[in-house]
């Protein structure tokens, strides 16, 4: 060979980067354009703070209410109950309360601000490759790609659904959250109380949060009852009775829901299930087939260890990584290579997709006339598929209301939200009609991104 003088491949020239954060800036770049980070062009409905270090869902939901309730109740407890109880009982009461309070707040913030396991969307060339693979029969008419693919996991048939928004077959246990508009791995549910999805990477924080919160509310409730009981003998006035009563009321109502939720999630952890799977009854024996959860280790202890203490994969969206500069000359691959985020400058994917759709429709007649004669199949494809996407994008996307712990389907009814507060039995009866994939309204509007990019790329979708 081959004197292998390895030199770091310049990501701008090839459109790929070997390091996750391309910190090697080129010397001799002509314009001093600020390099943008990937979080700035992230297509999902997420908010980013501290230059991409912190992320959460678009709607914070009732997170401020959650934090407020915890602070107020704990504040009242420390102010009004602790002095009395330290006198009468022991100094450890505020210590234990303090430790629990800190634990609750830390785990809550970690649940809210951690990437739940979002899968980045497929790049256009990947999406094209998938479409080509699943439609290799070469028929002349355009067919939308089949929505499911069946695979075998531990001798159990599992259906993988095709996500039209993210342009990929979702891995097992992955679900698309309609609130955040992302596919999330091991999707549990979208929790408005923490303002974020709960998925693979932050489930253990969520579980720690609800367990510690149940301990905290029970502890405060117990201390308040003790305070009220002890202060009747010998008839000493409570420092501020209304505050104590307020704490009592808040704790009483929280305890039922939080304890119920903790119990439910302990059951899920022990059987290695997600809320999504449990609500949908994916592995229940009610379906009449021999179906069991293929992911369980059939041992409660192992399941708990795996779910709570297993390794956390790093965030896949690399939000603090730098984008390749927009004006990348790409002298080598200008015709065929598309920079990953070239078409995604607009934060709102829907408007961008519609704009490009209209532009591409205007161009499509020109494209067809200049297409090489070797591709008769693509010409009618482009036109017909554009027409289909136009007819579908006219209907506005169905966004679900922001209240309720809804699952990934947009039409999930509101009373499913009660399931997260302990009434999981009612949820079992309400999930059935909502199982159909509701992706067309909001996700097919994204398909123009492929079609309009077609002329720029070396490979045009063949159907």
């Amino acid at each position, binding site marked *: 060979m081959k004197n292998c003088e390895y030199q770091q491949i310049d990501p701008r020239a090839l459109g790929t980067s070997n390091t996750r954060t391309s910190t090697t800036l080129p010397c001799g770049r002509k314009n001093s354009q600020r390099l943008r980070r990937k979080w700035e062009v992230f297509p999902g409905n997420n908010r980013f703070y501290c230059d991409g270090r912190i992320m959460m869902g678009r709607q914070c939901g009732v997170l401020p209410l959650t934090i407020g309730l915890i602070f107020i109740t704990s504040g009242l407890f420390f102010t009004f109950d602790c002095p009395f109880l330290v006198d009468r009982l022991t100094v450890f009461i505020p210590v234990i309360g303090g430790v629990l309070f*800190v634990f609750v707040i830390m785990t809550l913030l970690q649940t809210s601000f951690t990437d739940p396991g979002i899968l980045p969307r497929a790049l256009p060339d990947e999406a094209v490759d998938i479409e*080509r693979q699943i439609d290799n029969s070469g028929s002349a008419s355009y067919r939308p790609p089949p929505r499911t693919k069946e695979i075998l*996991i*531990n001798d159990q048939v599992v259906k993988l659904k095709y996500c039209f928004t993210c342009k990929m077959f979702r891995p097992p246990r992955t679900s698309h959250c309609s609130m955040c508009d992302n596919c999330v791995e091991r999707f549990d549910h979208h929790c408005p109380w923490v303002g974020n999805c709960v998925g693979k990477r932050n489930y253990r924080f969520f579980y720690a949060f609800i367990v510690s919160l149940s301990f905290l509310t029970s502890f405060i409730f117990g201390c308040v009852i003790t305070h009220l009981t002890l202060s009747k003998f010998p008839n000493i006035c409570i420092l501020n009775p209304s505050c104590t009563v307020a704490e009592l009321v808040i704790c009483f109502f929280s305890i039922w829901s939080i304890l119920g939720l903790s119990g439910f999630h302990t059951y899920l952890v022990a059987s290695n299930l997600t809320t999504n799977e449990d609500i949908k009854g994916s592995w229940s024996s009610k379906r009449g087939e021999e179906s069991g959860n293929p992911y369980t280790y059939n041992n409660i202890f192992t399941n708990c260890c*795996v779910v709570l203490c*297993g390794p956390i994969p790093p965030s896949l969206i690399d939000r603090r990584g730098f984008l390749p500069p927009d004006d990348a000359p790409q002298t*080598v691959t200008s*015709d065929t290579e598309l920079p990953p985020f070239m078409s995604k400058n607009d934060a709102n994917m829907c408007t961008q997709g519609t704009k490009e759709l209209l532009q591409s429709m205007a161009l499509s007649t020109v494209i067809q006339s200049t297409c090489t004669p070797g591709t008769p199949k693509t010409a009618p494809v482009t036109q017909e598929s554009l027409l289909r996407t136009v007819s579908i994008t006219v209907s506005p996307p169905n966004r679900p209301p922001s209240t309720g712990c809804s699952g990934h389907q947009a039409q999930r009814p509101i009373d499913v939200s009660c399931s997260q507060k302990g009434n999981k039995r009612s949820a079992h009866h309400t999930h059935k009609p909502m199982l159909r994939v509701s992706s067309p309204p909001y996700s097919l509007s994204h398909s123009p991104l492929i079609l309009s990019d077609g002329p720029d790329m070396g490979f045009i979708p063949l159907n």
Partner: protein
Amino acid sequence: MSSAPRTATERTKLPYCHESFHNLQELRHSASLANKVFIQRDYTDGTVCKFQTKFPSELDSRIERTLFEDTVKTLNNYYAEAEKIGGQSYLEGCLACLTVYLIFLCIETRYEKVLKKISRYIQEQNEKVYAPRGLLITDPIERGMRVIEISVYEDRGSSGSSSGSSTTSSSGR
């Protein structure tokens, strides 16, 4: 028009001669991207990260089957090591829980360490095996662990090499 063919049918007509790329620098300067091959995930063992070892037909004339399978199998082993559930991962998990998960700010988890090993391995494989054959592997972490992307390059006709002339004739089509 650039040398890269615009449709899949045209690409299949490329003469896949073995262009000799001596190093990645040469690849960068003289090559143009012809095609991308995607190796998908293999979910038969559950949600663990594992890629299919099936040899894609597009690489038939570019690289030996055994080399390719070795690379994918080694990557699969690395990922299995990262996601292994055992004593060390439990220790990490319990320690993290006790410190309210703040320990993740200070130490690097085993997963991250293995990912670094993987990217070093991929760089080494690119240098030694793939770049001389005009191929380039992209680290799966860049693609959200969905696929292993292999970029197939064709020589754009570097002056003086015999293979260059044949590709310039093909690019003239």
